[in-house]
């Protein structure tokens, strides 16, 4: 069965620090990759997505992620975090070629200290 691993359960950073959240998946075929964010008390929102093309994708609020096929990874990055980035981040994978089911990682909680 396909699985998605997020390496960090809880990350604590000071403002202006750089962020990298790891995500690895187990499926070997074509995949669509997503990062979702859930701010405290809010809905899950799409942060960014990769379907094809340039493996470096840019999302909202200065986030970016790089798809490295050889490593089955899709790590999320931000050069300088803000207190408002405090949230829970979920990586999700969908098999390509017509699949609909998203498989989510367990999430990484990010706390940014002012």
């Amino acid at each position: 069965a396909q699985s998605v691993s997020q390496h960090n359960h809880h990350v604590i950073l000071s403002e202006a620090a750089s962020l990298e959240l790891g995500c690895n998946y187990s499926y070997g075929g074509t995949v669509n990759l997503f990062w979702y964010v859930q701010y405290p008390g809010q809905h899950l929102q799409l942060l960014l997505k990769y379907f094809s093309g340039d493996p470096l994708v840019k999302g909202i609020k200065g986030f970016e992620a790089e798809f490295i096929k050889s490593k089955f990874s899709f790590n999320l990055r931000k050069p300088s975090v803000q207190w408002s980035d405090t949230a829970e981040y979920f990586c999700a994978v969908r098999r390509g070629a017509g699949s609909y089911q998203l498989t989510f990682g367990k999430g990484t909680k990010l706390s940014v200290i002012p």
Partner: protein
Amino acid sequence: GAGVSQSPSNKVTEKGKDVELRCDPISGHTALYWYRQSLGQGLEFLIYFQGNSAPDKSGLPSDRFSAERTGGSVSTLTIQRTQQEDSAVYLCASSFDSQGPKEQYFGPGTRLTVT
């Protein structure tokens, strides 16, 4: 426009009771999904509806769980004889179509607590 809405936002029920959770997808979205988010876990797929096709129920954890979608719009997730392990946040999502790179839009969820 309006997003995915879910009701109730919170539900506390006694063990053994039945509960119904409702989802109103975004107008025009043909695909609808239910997920469960337990404490410290990611989102677990439960069931998927696409248009008039038979739903994919492969993620339902037991036969106490069922869901229907009336008129291709509103969906109801029913949990019979609730157990404490059913306590979780139940999330609904919708998208224009299941095929291709269509984004799933999530609702706010229903927090279910079984006492």
